[in-house]
């Protein structure tokens, strides 16, 4: 029950709707259940030779209409409540993903995370709203039926009520074992999905190296595992319906036997104050049938409920994902100075990726980071953008640690292009305007021209309106040009380029450089370069190796030093 507490705030504003739904359930069940009682009265009338039962039939007709109306609105409200829960849960899970620590997202399996947003929430609705309300409705039906049965004949009523818990016990017993099976099934499905995702994402390598042969065994065994856990979950759930039906059929038999006995030997039962009629027996039999149905319903719903609880736990994990800490409060109007003070950082808290990174950046300067692959260049960008925070030391803006500013305020002043390009689902134009959503088409095209992307965009099927996504089959270079166009459009105060042009050919890159020069004019920029040619005009070049700055200076100074930078430089001509 504790795990359900998370739903409380979502249902708070819907109290009256829930109350109304409960009320409708009550009213519709009342109308529905009084009908067999009245039918029994009718049968008695007929049996007694009193054939004029028109008023009774009209009463039944009226109740019938009311029952129908209430039932319809109950179902409608149930779904309304359920779907708004789905919506608000999805909104919150989405928002949590958007505000979670970047490190959290880096660590999660992306396919699995997506499944929580999409299907797990659906399960929660299905089990905990639709399921729970139908459980309530079922219980109401059972209660009203019991009252009416006792009114008709307390002895028979007692028999039914005393025996019916067996049915509940049976279904409880079965369900209690199901939860584990469903959890297992859910987990295995997640693994299968992520197996498939891996193949889909890597299909080039899979095809080129015949990886299918390698992976198919693993898939087959996981698939078999899925079959096993799925079978257990399904077959276990399968017991609930027939078992409750068996119990109820046996109760039905008891009612027939005892009822007939009472009609056969009325004198033997008269001392108990029982008068019984054929009509009452008929009503009783109908109740026995209907008595069965809600138990089945409750049983069905409870299996959904167990599934839902497993899903809710998964959703809850996302909702409790570590938040990106954003404790900064200070306003930030402009960035006048930027520096780094003795920063240490490690991803795994074991191996230092950045070691005593210390730096003073003058406003308007172009700073370049070079060094062998894996020396920590990208990490510097991660830290400066505050996707990760240093273990020790700080970046300082205007001599104040960046942690003192809200991330949003700080990032407003920065623009970055990463080596790992990412395109959002949407049109090319939307993708370029990501940083300036209200940009006009002219501005977008102008930015694309600056980024030398206009040409290939026009060659695409629908030009700037072509819908793309990260999975689109554009080349890395084209994707990078689009990302460059983004930054050309929003023209940020501080420009961060992390090997932003690594997949763009040299000719284009040279043509691009004038656009970049224009963009960076008077701006502070930090460029992780993979081609030394692009940083010849840098004001300061930092040479990094294994997380440490080992050389520093401008292009000429570094060459004269004949150190590590010189080696890197020479390698280009090898």
């Amino acid at each position, binding site marked *: 029950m504790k795990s359900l507490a998370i739903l409380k705030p979502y249902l708070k504003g819907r109290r009256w709707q829930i109350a109304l739904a409960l009320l409708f359930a009550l009213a519709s069940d009342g109308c529905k259940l009084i009908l067999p009682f009245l039918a029994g009265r009718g049968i008695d009338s007929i049996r007694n030779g009193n054939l004029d039962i028109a008023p009774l039939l009209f009463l039944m007709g009226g109740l019938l209409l009311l029952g129908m109306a209430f039932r319809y609105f109950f179902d409608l409200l149930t779904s309304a409540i359920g*779907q708004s829960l789905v919506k608000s849960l999805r909104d919150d899970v989405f928002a949590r993903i958007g505000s979670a620590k970047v490190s959290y997202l880096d660590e999660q399996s992306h*396919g699995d995370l997506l499944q929580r947003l999409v299907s797990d929430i659906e399960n929660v609705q299905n089990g905990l709203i639709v399921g729970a309300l139908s459980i309530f409705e079922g219980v109401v039906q059972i209660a009203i039926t019991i009252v009416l049965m006792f009114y008709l004949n307390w002895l028979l009523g007692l028999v039914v009520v005393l025996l019916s818990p067996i049915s509940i016990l049976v279904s409880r017993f079965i369900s209690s074992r199901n939860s584990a099976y469903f959890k297992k099934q859910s987990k295995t499905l997640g693994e299968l999905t992520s197996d498939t995702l891996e193949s889909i994402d890597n299909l080039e390598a899979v095809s080129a190296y015949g990886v299918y042969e390698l992976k198919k065994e693993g898939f087959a065994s996981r698939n078999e595992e899925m079959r096993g856990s799925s079978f257990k979950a399904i077959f276990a759930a399968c017991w609930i319906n027939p078992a409750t039906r068996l119990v109820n059929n046996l109760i039905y038999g008891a009612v027939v036997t005892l009822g007939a006995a009472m009609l056969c030997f009325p004198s033997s039962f008269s001392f108990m104050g029982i008068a019984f009629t054929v009509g009452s027996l008929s009503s009783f039999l109908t109740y026995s049938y209907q008595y069965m149905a809600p138990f089945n319903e409750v049983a069905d719903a409870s299996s959904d409920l167990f599934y839902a609880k497993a899903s809710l736990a998964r959703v809850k994990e996302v909702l409790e994902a570590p938040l990106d800490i954003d404790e900064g409060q200070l306003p930030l109007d402009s960035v006048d100075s930027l520096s780094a003070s003795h920063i240490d950082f490690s991803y795994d808290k074991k191996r230092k990726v950045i070691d005593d990174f210390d730096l003073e950046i003058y406003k308007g300067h172009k700073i370049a980071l070079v060094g062998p692959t894996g020396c920590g260049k990208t990490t510097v960008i991660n830290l400066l953008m505050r996707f990760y925070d240093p273990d020790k030391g700080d970046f300082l803006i205007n001599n104040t640690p960046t942690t003192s500013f809200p991330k949003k305020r700080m990032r407003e002043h920065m623009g970055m292009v990463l080596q790992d390009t990412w395109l959002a689902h949407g049109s090319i134009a939307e993708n370029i305007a990501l940083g300036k959503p209200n940009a006009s088409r002219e501005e977008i095209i102008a930015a694309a021209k600056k980024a030398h992307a206009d040409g290939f965009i026009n060659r695409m099927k629908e030009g700037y309106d072509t819908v793309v996504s990260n999975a689109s089959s554009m080349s890395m270079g084209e994707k990078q040009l689009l990302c460059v166009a983004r930054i050309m459009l929003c023209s940020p105060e501080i420009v961060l380029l992390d090997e932003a042009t690594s997949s763009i050919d040299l000719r284009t890159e040279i043509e691009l450089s004038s656009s970049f020069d224009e963009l960076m004019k008077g701006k502070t920029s930090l460029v992780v370069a993979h081609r030394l040619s692009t940083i010849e005009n840098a004001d300061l070049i930092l040479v990094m190796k294994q997380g440490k700055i080992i050389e520093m200076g401008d292009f000429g100074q570094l060459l004269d030093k004949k150190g590590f930078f010189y080696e890197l430089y020479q390698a280009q001509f090898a």
Partner: protein
Amino acid sequence: MKALTPLRKYRAKVFLAPALKLFECLCELAVPFIVAAIIDEGLTQGGSHYHEAPFVLGLSGLVFAFAVLGFGLTMISQYLSSDTCTRFSLELRQGIYDHIHSLTPIELEEYGKNRALTLMGNDSFSLQNGVQYFMRLLVRAPFIVLGSIVASFVINWVAGLIVVGALGLSALVIFLVIKLTPKQYGKLQRELDVISARGEDAIHGARVIRAFNLEEKQEGEFKQESERYRKVALLLSKINAAINPLTFGLINLAVIVILYFGSYGRSSSGLTTGQIVALLSFLTQSLNALIQFTRLVTSLSKALASKKRIDAFLAIEPSIVDGPLLEEPSIKEGDLYFELRKAGVSFGGQGYGLLDVDMEIHKGEKVGIIGGTGSGKSVLISLLERFRDPSVGSFFYKGHDARESKVSSIRGDIAFVSQKPQLFKGSVADNITLGLPLDKERLDRALDDSLSSEFVSRMSNGVDTLLEERGANLSGGQKQRLMIARALYADRPVLILDDATSALDYKSDSLLRENINKRPGLTLVMVSQRATSIKNCDRIYVLDEGKVVGLGKHEELLSSCPVYKEIYEAQVKRT
């Protein structure tokens, strides 16, 4: 294969399970007759017939017997259906998995990677449920309803007509809803795809979204999308919610009519009270069955929609298939290995991605391909790797049309390193050997030659270190080096590097090339944007806007090909 093909094997079980259900239904339908007999035969007017007691109690005993028999039959049927549906979905998932692998990356991309993923999860799951429901639940309702109708006619033909009328109309209501909803379910699914796409953006694009402060905008748009989904879902339930009250109303209307018929029309109908009680029982039974049935409708129409999607996916014919050739001719150093003649590739839109390309690659040759972004280099490679066939012109492999060969013969010759690093779950070693037997010496050499040893040895468990999904714990350059290590370990006669060193610094790049060139007899196809990377190749193809604009050695091209000269000078002059 179609979605339901795997079921064929279980045909007997698929029909046995419902047949058992039939017997269970007969057990249920017998009960009202027993009750009618008790009321009409066992109890006469006024009640007290002491000598009828054994008759009455004997009949009551039958009710118990049928209950137990029915339970036994059902459980056998449940076992069969659970077993069959899970075995079915096992094969279905395998089929989907296999089909994914029979497509080329290009075809899969066209279909949509996300959609393919949904097939494996939601769709196969909902179809599994559909099969299960079909086997154990779907038949129950029609059996009970038809049985009740027959039984009512046995009692009295007018009563039979009333029951037919009520049940027929109820069935019509259900039918209408089944007719009306699939379109809405389709719409709902599309809205779900939108939500899924947005969610994926939020996860994959976390850094960019944050950098541009788009969190709120994304959240706002997502809210609109989730609202649209909510509205469609609500509309659907407005239709679905009508089933229950309408069927309930019709059945109870029939109860009222039967009572009317039994009272005001008693002289003509001759219905006994026992018969009326039995008729009411049949109606109640049928109503319960119908309600169960309506709940099924939702799951089944979901299953049907899933079936259609799976069918559509499985129906995609892989465009690249094996040819008849069993044995490839052996070729020796210097022989023509790959050849493109007047090859062109069109994407279906205007213009060509590749046009009129003539290309020869000889065994043992080092071939360079250079050109700007979008010049068609990767399209050219996709032809060699047979990820696609040329739309015009032809591709020859070892002297014959490549389509005559088995796909695996061609691909098996080539160690391919794609632009995009592609890593799998598992250890570094697993990622390099990719299923080949582990040979420590060979592995070390591959790691050394690809310059991976340096960072792999620094990893916590060396080559046994587990990589995170998509190699999240590696830098771009490290990923590329591992990809090259993988290609070198595969030790195939041809090595294709498709701009595979873009994330490496120049020094590493040139060291790497040195190491690769040391491998004897290797046919090398190197795609690059750096002229320095390919300048030592035996032959260099220069691509521009999908066409070959230059061919020759470095020195020749410098004088004959302006595009090449420009690229080279750009690189050298600037540095």
